């Protein structure tokens, strides 16, 4: 009986998969981000994974494969930090789930409990080649919650999400300051509160370890359960800090608690590149076209280029927008980063890396996505010209071998 079941599954796979998932993508230029670009390249996608990448004269396209052609082929784009799926396009109460303001620190808030896979902005960014997003609770509270990593597909969270609990989000500086008994009113208070909370998590972790094997589990606390993963280095703490002093505070906290820090926003980071480099901290820099006001008034559109040239792992992001446009598109952000960053030494593939390979590495899914290489997910973006030119169109987006967008956007 069991054998029969297995046979049926294999049979079903044989019937369904060839039509659905066997795909060859030819590009006049294929940017694999895993070695030099390939002129007249071919990417073979089999059962949702990349099975072969190489020049057309060396890679034979097997019979029965559907063939897509494009001027330029890149890895599916990776948005290293977004709020899409939680912050909806209409910007009215019922579609804004990115920030809970009743609590100053809420690490227990899971992004999976709020992710709306049918959000139209997901379909929108998919049409520009974005296939993977690191999304979740927005900056704006001291600890606003968690993030997840999803593919831009599916109609349910379960179909979309590949990492349900990715990072914990913290915000330093003005945007998480409020007056009141519970909320911090100054930077120093803010940091004192955060330190106290992390110390509680350390104590809880120590208690848990000392109880190991003794059976007595004690009362569960969702917030500390999450922060224990932060202080034991399992889950990165994504700290949004734009002002110079807040960036340095983030480094100081990392030094004290030894967590894995991912620096986010980082508008004034260009002032402390050696410090960031020494600390080995990756940076998910603000959108290139983010509005230069408030704590980001001193942002530079060349920061991503400067970070890359300093040898710091760097990614770009769509970020959070409170108003129009409700999401940015990382393709456009990288385009401007390249246009203005060329003087700093940034080149085409480095700019592309900010929204593919390097973004995937920083969010921890570099083994699955971000480059076109054998064994990785068959996530690709196809363009009818230089993807960064404003007048170029995305003509197809492929996720795990499936064409999820085809047209001209």
């Amino acid at each position, binding site marked *: 009986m069991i054998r029969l079941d297995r046979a049926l599954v294999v049979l079903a796979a044989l019937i369904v998969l060839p039509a659905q998932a066997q795909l060859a993508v030819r590009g006049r230029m294929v940017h694999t981000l895993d070695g030099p670009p390939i002129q007249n390249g071919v990417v073979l996608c089999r059962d949702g994974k990349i099975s072969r990448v190489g020049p057309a004269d060396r890679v034979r396209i097997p019979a029965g494969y559907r063939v897509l052609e494009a001027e330029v082929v890149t890895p599916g784009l990776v948005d290293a930090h977004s709020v899409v799926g939680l912050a909806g396009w209409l910007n009215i109460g019922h579609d804004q789930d990115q920030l809970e303001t009743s609590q100053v620190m809420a690490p227990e808030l899971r992004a999976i409990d709020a992710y709306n896979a049918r959000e139209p902005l997901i379909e929108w960014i998919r049409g520009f080649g974005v296939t993977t997003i690191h999304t979740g609770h927005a900056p704006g509270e001291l600890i606003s919650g968690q993030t997840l990593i999803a593919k831009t597909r599916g109609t349910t969270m379960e179909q979309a999400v590949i990492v349900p609990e990715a990072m914990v989000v913290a915000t330093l500086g003005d945007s998480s300051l409020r007056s009141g008994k519970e909320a911090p009113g100054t930077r120093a208070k803010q940091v004192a509160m955060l330190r106290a909370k992390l110390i509680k998590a350390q104590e809880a972790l120590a208690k848990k370890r000392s109880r190991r094997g003794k059976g007595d589990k004690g009362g569960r606390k969702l917030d500390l359960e999450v922060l224990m993963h932060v202080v034991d280095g399992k889950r990165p703490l994504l700290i949004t800090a734009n002002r110079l002093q807040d960036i340095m505070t983030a480094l100081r906290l990392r030094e004290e608690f030894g967590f894995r820090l991912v620096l986010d926003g980082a508008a004034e980071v260009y002032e402390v590149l050696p410090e960031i480099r020494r600390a080995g901290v990756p940076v998910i820099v603000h959108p290139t*076209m983010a509005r230069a006001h408030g704590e980001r008034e001193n942002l530079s559109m060349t920061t991503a280029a400067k970070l890359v040239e300093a040898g710091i792992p760097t990614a770009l992001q769509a970020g959070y927008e409170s108003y129009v446009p*409700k999401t*940015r598109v990382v393709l456009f952000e990288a385009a401007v980063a390249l*246009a203005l960053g060329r003087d700093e030494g940034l080149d085409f593939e480095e700019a592309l890396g900010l929204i593919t390979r390097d973004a995937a590495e920083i969010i921890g899914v570099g083994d699955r996505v971000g480059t076109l290489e054998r064994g990785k997910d068959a996530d690709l973006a196809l363009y009818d010209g230089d993807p960064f030119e404003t007048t170029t169109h995305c003509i197809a987006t492929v996720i795990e071998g499936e064409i999820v967008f085809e047209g001209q956007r």
Partner: protein
Amino acid sequence: MRVFLFALVVAAVGLTVTFAQRSVQVFTGATVIPVSGPAIPNGVLVVENGRIAAVGPAGSVRVPRGADVTDLSGLVVMPGMICTHSHVAQPWGGDSSGPLQPEVRALDAVNVRAASVQKAQAGGITTANLMPGSGHLMGGQTLYVKFRDGKTVDDLALRGADGRVLGGLKMANGTNPQKAKPYPGTRAKSAALVRQRFIEAQEYRDKLANAAGDPEKKPARDLGLEALVEVLDGRRVIHHHTHRHDDILTVLRLSEEFGFRVVLHHVSEAWKVVDEIKAAGAACSLIAIDSPGGKLEARDIKWENAPLLEKAGVDIAFHTDDPINDSRLFLRSAAQGMRVGLSRQAALESLTLAGARMLDLDDRVGSLEVGKDADFVVLDGDPLSIYTKVLQTWIDGELVFDRSLPEDKKWAEGGWGAGSDNHAHHCCLGPTGRLR
């Protein structure tokens, strides 16, 4: 008599020569895009006393002796850009006291030393319509400016031949001006309030006419109605924020009833009512946003508005709505239009000449033509490529932005100090550091 004439001619020639040495600037070698005509490879632009004295291909344009010649080989010159809807320099209008405030003037609010002015120069924007916000049905009088390096608002404000400060009137409908009392709560109420005020303006105008200059018979001065009379007389254009298809039609209906000239701004759902816009003869000032929505009434915004309106024969311009879009990236908006089918010519006009027409300034700015103001930008490539940078911005023949200077590069890219309001010392110094 002959001797006298001869002396006059000599004097005139002498004057011209001295003048030429002082204020004739010639720019050679660039591809000149006049916008009013086809691009001129290896073009020559002659600027005299802040105006364009000649423009044409090398060889066809006489270069005056002693002129200050700048070689721009390999570069591109196009007209200074015109932003028909900008909030640069904090031009705030009405307060929270009520929905109809046509009496307030952006003139009395703008801060010409704001960092945003420097950034607009860095983006190649030379002329702008500085607008109050959209939280009122009538938000106030807008101000047409040139982004000169100015000390006071008078240095930037544009004036008509009669000395009048130029500007339009900002209006808005849809959800932005709808809020708690005394603001309207519905669309019908919004329209009724506007109609009532325009009727009052008509009556006020009639009273003024009947008084025939007799101070005894003149009605008491009303600053708001005075502005609306200018609107009724066609001397002040309405710049109308509007998104939804039905709101767009409401604007056109009011425009027809009261005969005012209107430019439709944002016009998110223009694609639904292209024929109606065309029939009304209204121009459209569009915004290019990287994703739809952000607010309910902008849900259906489409980049395709631009090519669809172009095909219908509607005059279209882009605007930054700075800070919504950054003035430094204005060129990108036209390229986004081209991405979905806008013609190259319309794309170039949408940044320059079309905007000039919407502000009634097309006799002065918007194209590189003899007699127009010498407002132009020098680019390092094609205006519609993302890789192209603005190298220089010139207004009235004066260099106001020069990317080769570290201070100006900071405004172009951002960086430490780029967020602060312009420091006072910039008031009197051009980018070359010369005291003016």
